[in-house]
């Protein structure tokens, strides 16, 4: 249990008063304030404020008893604060593309107002919604209500966390494959269901589906990222491009300059744009500037990125690119591949190690070989290795800290903040 800070905790009345001052301060200013929103709900704000005053998190772990193995969480205020408080929340699966039709959403909000404190975190970092409830006994009641509405509680612990997908073809021109359809199909696979329902891995597993190299669903840092891309150069509609150039909407020289790999050249005589398909790295810059005259190429495919994470044993990593899947790949085939990956992870991993950690000590080549990924992937690259980075966090000696504190002071004076 975290102890109270050495500098002491004010008595409850004083603490409450100070907390209120801090909270009021956070309601000022043009940016939308979380405190203003929380005030309209039954959230125990005095505990949060007290946390700010003492400089330590006011919450201690607690638990809820339900039939659910994942997705329910509870906290209790640290006893030394002297302020009672409880916080129980459920992780609720989000809708495909996170579209919320108002008729459905109103039903959800009504349920939240009835059984919960009237607060919704519209999206958490796992991709789920988070609902705070008032009493531990209501966990099952709220869950039943949610099941009636067509969603459910889950997505925590050492299981598959919520699958994340970008909006894809539903509201985007760039999607190179149908992210939402694959997202739905993956959920319907019984093996995925089992591993979301019950924690069964060393640590969490996060699949992320992005439709194009802009990577809105952050596939680069998912344990398994499926990133839409294409083969060769982007498709250029020369007629439309000429028109756009004539209208002054597109500057061909800017396209040339913007191309990071120097693949683009503009022929001013024939008024034609050429893209060297060997040099194109799919950075999307020309597509962003001249869409729809330049579009993702015709021959689509899905790049598979393996082993990105934030919270692993060896720290932050982005995924290794290991090969492609065809754009119309079936969910069954993707889950078959996942199973192979889980097998190797299970065999070599230690508790609380992500897939990337196993990759680091096995080596990516050996991991790919043991997981037999060549049975699933096409056009696998010859080179997967990456270069190491330095450690971003460490213990700092006080004099080192002083240097940066003084820098902040100087900047503060300079900008008058």
């Amino acid at each position, binding site marked *: 249990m975290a102890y109270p800070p050495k500098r002491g905790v004010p008595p409850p009345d004083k603490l409450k008063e100070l907390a209120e001052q801090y909270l009021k301060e956070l309601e000022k200013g043009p940016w939308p304030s979380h405190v203003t929103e929380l005030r309209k709900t039954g959230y125990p704000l005095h505990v949060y404020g007290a946390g700010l005053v003492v400089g330590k998190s006011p919450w201690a772990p607690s638990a809820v008893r339900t039939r659910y193995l994942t997705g329910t969480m509870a906290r209790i205020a640290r006893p030394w604060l002297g302020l009672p408080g409880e916080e129980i929340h459920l992780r609720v699966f989000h809708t495909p593309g996170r579209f919320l039709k108002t008729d459905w959403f109103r039903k959800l909000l009504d349920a939240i107002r009835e059984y919960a404190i009237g607060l919704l975190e519209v999206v958490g970092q796992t991709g789920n919604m988070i609902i705070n409830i008032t009493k531990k006994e209501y966990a099952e009641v709220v869950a039943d209500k949610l099941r009636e509405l067509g969603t459910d509680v889950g997505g925590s612990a050492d299981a598959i966390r919520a699958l994340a997908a970008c909006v894809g073809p539903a509201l985007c021109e760039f999607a190179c494959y149908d992210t939402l359809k694959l997202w739905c199909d993956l959920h319907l696979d019984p093996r995925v269901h089992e591993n979301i329902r019950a924690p069964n891995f060393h640590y969490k597993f996060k699949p992320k589906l992005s439709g194009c190299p802009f990577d809105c669903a952050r596939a680069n840092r998912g344990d398994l990222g499926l990133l839409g891309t294409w083969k060769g150069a982007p498709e250029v509609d020369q007629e439309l491009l000429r028109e756009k150039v004539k209208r002054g909407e597109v500057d061909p020289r800017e396209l040339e300059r913007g191309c990071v790999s120097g693949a683009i050249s503009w022929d001013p005589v024939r008024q034609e744009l050429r893209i060297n398909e060997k040099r194109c790295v799919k950075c999307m810059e020309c597509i962003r500037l001249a869409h729809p005259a330049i579009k993702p190429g015709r021959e689509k495919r899905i790049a598979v990125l393996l082993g990105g994470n934030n919270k692993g044993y060896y720290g932050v990593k982005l995924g290794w690119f290991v090969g492609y899947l065809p754009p119309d790949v079936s969910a069954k085939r993707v889950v078959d591949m996942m199973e192979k990956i889980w097998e190797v992870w299970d065999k070599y991993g230690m508790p609380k190690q992500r897939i990337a950690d196993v990759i680091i000590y096995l080596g990516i080549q050996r991991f790919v070989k043991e997981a037999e990924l060549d049975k699933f992937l096409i056009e696998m690259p010859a080179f997967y290795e990456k270069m190491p980075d330095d450690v*971003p966090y460490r213990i700092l000696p006080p004099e080192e800290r002083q240097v940066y504190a003084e820098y902040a002071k100087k900047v503060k004076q300079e900008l008058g903040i």
Partner: protein
Amino acid sequence: MSAPPAGRGAIELVFPAHKGLEYWLPDVIRRNYGKWKERRFHGYGIIEHISETGERVFTIKVSGTPNARFSADTLLKFCDIADKYGIGALRITTAANVEFITDSLDKALKIKEEVEKLGFLVGGWRNTLWGINACTAFLTCQIGVTDAVSLAKAIGDQLKPYFTGEIPLPAKLRVFVSGCPNACAGGTAMDISIIGVWGAAPIIREDILPVCIPPPKALARIPESKVFMVQVCPVGALRVKRVGEKFTLELIEARCINCVRCKDNCDAFDYEPEEVGWGIIVGGRLSNTGSGPRVGRMLIPWLPSNPPRYPEVVAVVKKIVEVWRQNARPGERIGDLIDRISWARFTELLGLPRLPADYMYMPEHARTFMAYRWRGEWVWRRVRDAI
């Protein structure tokens, strides 16, 4: 590895996918699914999508509150606006902004007006601040050491003109604020990622420790390497120590890199608020634009944490944004600017005394066995060549 068969009383989960994709999509989206062919921007925060069928859809981006916390009251008001002026649907983005969808520019402007009346901001897309993500920190988390939510609010107040487009930026900017090195706000692969750092090695509270380690009899029999708390430490800084009949954990401070994996798994690890600060990591990105996806680099390892307004951190963040705004070419994100002008020049522009030379402090274990953190910018250039 497949999950064990569901036992009695095991629950069958109901996924939204069970109702089918069609059920969840608003009509206009369903009709034009996969048929979008063009997009146009109308000022900042309003985007128009044109379909092959000729239908048009306008999306209005509204900034979420820090940590995306909304009261049901506010969301019901959003529903009213969406019913009155929109197509009766909202959309939540990965980055915790709320999008309204409608079918004409007039209605879009009307929605903008209504939402601004409720105290929210419309902005984002193109060369602006796209939003600020914050982890839950002191709102629910027992691991976080600083409150990311209030810092996100304080930074948002300062960076508001960049969100609404009053002051245009060279390219996209996104800010992540996390309360501890777990970086739950989205990690470190972003333009500016602010992380709560412990600043000192954890203090072990002996009275709680027995909850996290096996009982003494078992500990006497099993090898140290099989003890869970020893396994979770990536640098081998935690050791089992025998004191008479009792067993305890010993922390080798020189090895500790403050990665908080021990705190993730055991509540006996504690800290003092005076030691805690904020680290600022810059230059990361996840999209493939410019020089490609990569994890950011530590720019400042520690800044004082003074709630509720955190003036020091806010000032430094604003300075970074201003230096970038004044020196970058159009379309250059922070990472691209640093690539072009070098880290040395970038720190000079910031007036920063030095960059943390972390490799010098890297624990021996991590240095000889494996590099601890990975950036991957070298890599990604090569990987992208392959894609």
